[in-house]
């Protein structure tokens, strides 16, 4: 019969390295402003950064606050600024980040506490572009038909996990928090170019105003940080082109 053994991650102590993590902390009920705190922790180079945060939280300081859930880059909970760049803490290994790691909340969002930002404004902007299929025609008794080519036309945008990495890395968002930001445009693109949707013009209308696509200055930060590899800037450009042509190419 097996006996209880140490967690695997702890069993491999021969490989651990000492990591110094600098966290930008903020507790609204403390009366203090934001401040930096440094933690020293042993980690396996193959530990995810979120594992490191968990170890700190569970063994050193239970007040350290961040969101996380899936632990493998699909739920979008743990977007944060690591070593100056927005990433998912569960997709970065200690081996990627080095032994001196800086963690901050994403820029461009109100900070709730430590690494947790308020995502409500982000989701409100997302809702603004009508992120749902609009088609009032009667539905067939089986599926609506769509060719593989029509499907491919909008597929890239469907990968979005709404983590906010792109929006939080965009200088246009930092300059103007009213701007819808790249994530909303990616989701608008997803519907504008879906052959089953009938409301492309509505969405283009919404995106044509002061807070719409034209605030994008093609800086490419969004494409560089997207943890899902979505060519964000390209999709935004496609929406701009559709606007110029006064109507999208819905294949």
């Amino acid at each position, binding site marked *: 019969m*097996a006996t209880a053994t140490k967690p695997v991650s702890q069993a491999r102590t021969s490989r651990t390295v000492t990591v110094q993590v600098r966290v930008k902390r903020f507790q609204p009920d403390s009366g203090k402003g934001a401040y930096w705190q440094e933690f020293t922790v042993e980690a396996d180079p193959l530990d995810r950064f979120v594992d490191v945060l968990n170890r700190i939280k569970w063994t050193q300081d239970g007040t350290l606050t961040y969101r996380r859930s*899936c632990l493998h*880059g699909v739920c979008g909970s743990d977007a944060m600024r690591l070593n100056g760049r927005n990433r998912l803490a569960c997709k970065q290994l200690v081996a990627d980040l080095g032994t001196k790691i800086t963690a901050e909340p994403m820029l461009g969002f109100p900070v709730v506490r430590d690494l947790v930002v308020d995502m409500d404004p982000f989701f409100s902007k997302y809702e603004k572009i009508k992120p749902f299929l609009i088609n009032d025609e009667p*539905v067939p008794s089986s599926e609506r038909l769509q060719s593989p080519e029509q499907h491919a036309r909008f*597929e890239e945008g469907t990968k979005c996990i709404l983590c906010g990495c792109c929006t939080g890395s965009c200088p246009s968002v930092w300059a103007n928090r009213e701007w819808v930001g790249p994530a909303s445009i990616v989701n608008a693109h997803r519907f504008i170019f879906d052959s089953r949707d009938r409301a492309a013009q509505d969405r283009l209308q919404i995106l044509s105003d002061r807070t719409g696509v034209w605030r994008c200055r093609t800086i490419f930060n969004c494409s560089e940080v997207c943890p899902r590899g979505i060519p964000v800037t390209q999709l935004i450009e496609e929406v701009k082109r559709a606007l110029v042509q006064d109507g999208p190419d819905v294949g």
Partner: protein
Amino acid sequence: MASNVASIGGRAYPITDHTFDVVIVGAGGAGLMAALQLPKDTSVAVISKVYPTRSHTGAAQGGVAAALGNQEEDHWKWHMFDTVKGGDYLVDQDAAEVLAREAIEAVYDLEHWGLPFNRTPDGKIDQRRFGGHTRNFGEGPVRRSCYAADRTGHMILQTMFQTAVKNQIRFFNEFLCTDLLVQENRAAGVVAYSIRDGEVHTFSAKAVIFATGGYGRAWRVTSNAMACTGDGMAIAYRRGVPLEDMEFYQFHPTGIYRVGVLLSEAARGEGAYLLNNTGERFMMRYTPTLNELAPRDIVSRSIVTEIREGRGILQTKRDGDDYVYLDVRHLGEAKIREKLPDITDFARNYLRVEPITEPVPIQPTAHYAMGGIPTDVEGRVVIDEHNTPLIGFYAAGEAACVSVHGANRLGTNSLVDLIVFGRRAGKHIARQLQANELDFAELPADAEDHTRAMISRLRAGTGETQDAIREDMRDVMMDLCGVMRTQAGLSQCKEKVAELQDRYSKVRIMDASTNFNTEMMEVIELGYVLDCAEATVAGALAREESRGGHFREDFPTRDDKRFLQHTLAYRADDGGVSELRYKPVVITEFQPKERKY
């Protein structure tokens, strides 16, 4: 909405009360599917401890099964048969029939809401093969899994969330449900703790649905998200509802070594090998016809046997910390790139292994709860072996046990379960409301007491912090209540879990804040997952047979005479399992046979 302030132990807590026709706890596939069935004039609240799009449904990769017959002949009855056989005949066949029949309409609903399924050249939903799904009652594999690349669950979750935005459904995000209110023998509402500001809210409702997902976090190695702590199951259990068939927990054979992240069955579907330390394709010894494509429970057991007999790569003979290889090298770079992109990504990212040139270390990973809150085919929660409903209380998805998965779930059958029974629960409530069959019950004056007492107790705890309790639980569950079990191991596990419950009763939290206190949330969740573990161990110890996902080394065969029945585990008021009852399996068409592949 009324707000006031109550004081307990000298501390003031603001209260917020809400009233909705229907309250749904959980915004994964099951919860959202239910929400989308309710008519516009019904007031609905969906409570979720994570933003809806962060729910674990988003992690599902493979697909959703439905006998659409888009690629080749298929029938719902074949799907039903595969489900019953896959579940080692512990499946309730009336429920399996509903699952297989209604999967078809439910998948079309998703398509109509915009789900971007992959398409056939003629524009229909594309379908592919998946383990255990066959044509003509087991003759050979069939293309039944509808999919959206390797992110079917993500697309289901996104599409439902989008449709919920369209329908203007009211969400309470980052609210942790802590209690079910039962009054006059019916569900009257729920209590929830707002993570953002620490307030306790009360929701009065005519109907409550729990769609809170699974509890993989009870084990050390798991594919499950950190939010999968069995909250709904534990809350119901604490309120006197039994938990059904908890001993049936699925270990997926191919979790990434150490981290447990899932490598989809698609790899073996495409022809991947499993190798031991001598480079042998050991599955050829265990299931010579299906080899690597045998059902999940069988492959997981074979891997553990290899490891225990010293043929794991590290040769430690300890199944918790050894591994075998998943090898795709022979498939060639082109196929690996085209068909298995996620596997390549995960292996590179989390193991720094290049699957094109190196084999990938894997170990079985705790994956899916076949058991849960007992329901009938309408999603109504039933509380005993006579299927007595608890009026107004519904459950759906992984949190529920209908039971369509019996002793072992087939791949792609969970997403079907969510959409079919989420839909059923929602529609049933809609009909009941229409017919005025459901009404508000007067809430007890002390509705929040239970939650407040729990929070005060946690704030006052003087024992150890959560870390060791949680890690010890995950260790003992992995080692003693995992892929293979024995009487001695389970007895020890039971004692350990009781001891952990005791340590938990004194647990201390470091964070005194009421503002986004995630330590408080984690500690409450730990209490829930411990309760789920307790019911699991009790069921496993009593079930002296091997069936599907439950394997007893000391009782290696299935025993239909004694155990062709569902376990119902009840909790004692002061904690611990008070009683196990048994309930017959519904058999309609397919008489139990030996499950051979």
